[in-house]
């Protein structure tokens, strides 16, 4: 297996393990965070805080490199425009997230683990993505 594939596999595995360890795959925990006026569950704040603490420090160090370790070039978004597409897309995503408590990562992990909810959610998510891709064209 080539090293690019291995690195992507390892990164995905770390990501998936992190989602499971922190119970982000349990939509009740996620909805508990989003429900600020109910029995608030702060877990998601610790997950996001821990993750961003790592990326905020380490991304700076990584980006000092000329190129990625395994060659090629850095593909980091250069667009910093806040437009209607961004805000509208984020708002639509947020409504869906608030309805079910699934965002894409936990839904994919949940589907692999055999959660029935995720089996219903993931095909609809793929359809939604296709639809947006068609419209954007």
């Amino acid at each position, binding site marked *: 297996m080539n090293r*690019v594939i291995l690195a992507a596999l390892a990164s995905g595995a770390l990501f998936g393990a992190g989602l499971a360890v922190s119970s982000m795959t349990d939509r009740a925990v996620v909805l508990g965070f989003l429900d600020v006026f109910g029995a608030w569950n702060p877990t998601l704040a610790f997950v996001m805080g821990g993750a961003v603490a790592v*990326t905020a420090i380490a991304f700076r160090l990584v980006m000092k490199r000329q190129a*990625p370790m395994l060659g090629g070039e850095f593909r980091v978004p250069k667009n910093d425009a806040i437009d209607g597409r961004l805000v509208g*897309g984020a708002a639509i995503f947020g409504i869906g997230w608030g309805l079910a408590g699934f965002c894409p*990562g936990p839904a994919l992990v949940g589907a692999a683990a055999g959660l029935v909810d995720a089996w219903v959610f993931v095909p609809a998510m793929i359809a939604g993505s296709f*639809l947006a891709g068609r419209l954007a064209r």
Partner: protein
Amino acid sequence: MNDWANGLLGGVLIGCAAVLLLWSIGRIAGISGIASGVFAGARSERDWRIAFIAGLAIAGAVTMQFVPSPPRMQTGPTALLLAAGLLVGFGTRLGNGCTSGHGVCGLGRFSRRSLAAVVTFMSAAMTTTFVVRHVIGTPG
């Protein structure tokens, strides 16, 4: 239960995953973009994307079996899950990112655009959960 400790540990693992991907192959660990890119992206980018999603799904599903508080297997209303899935897929594609791409990675890059996306989807999600649970009154 140390929810906060597990949350912090999981968060650090997720952060390390994003750093590993950027450091090794120079790509942003945004799950919605990686997943849709498997179908709609460049052919030359397809293999690493498939590998990432495979690692995510397999390691995540295996780890779930060892987490002390196993996820509750309650099932939600099918129509709600379908609608939610459609909105999440549509919105993340339109807005170029989800909780990982704009959240974990975008905030780590101090991107103004990602901060705007995170504030927007967090507000929309919290408002939606509020309406569903406290105005309509159905347990999500």
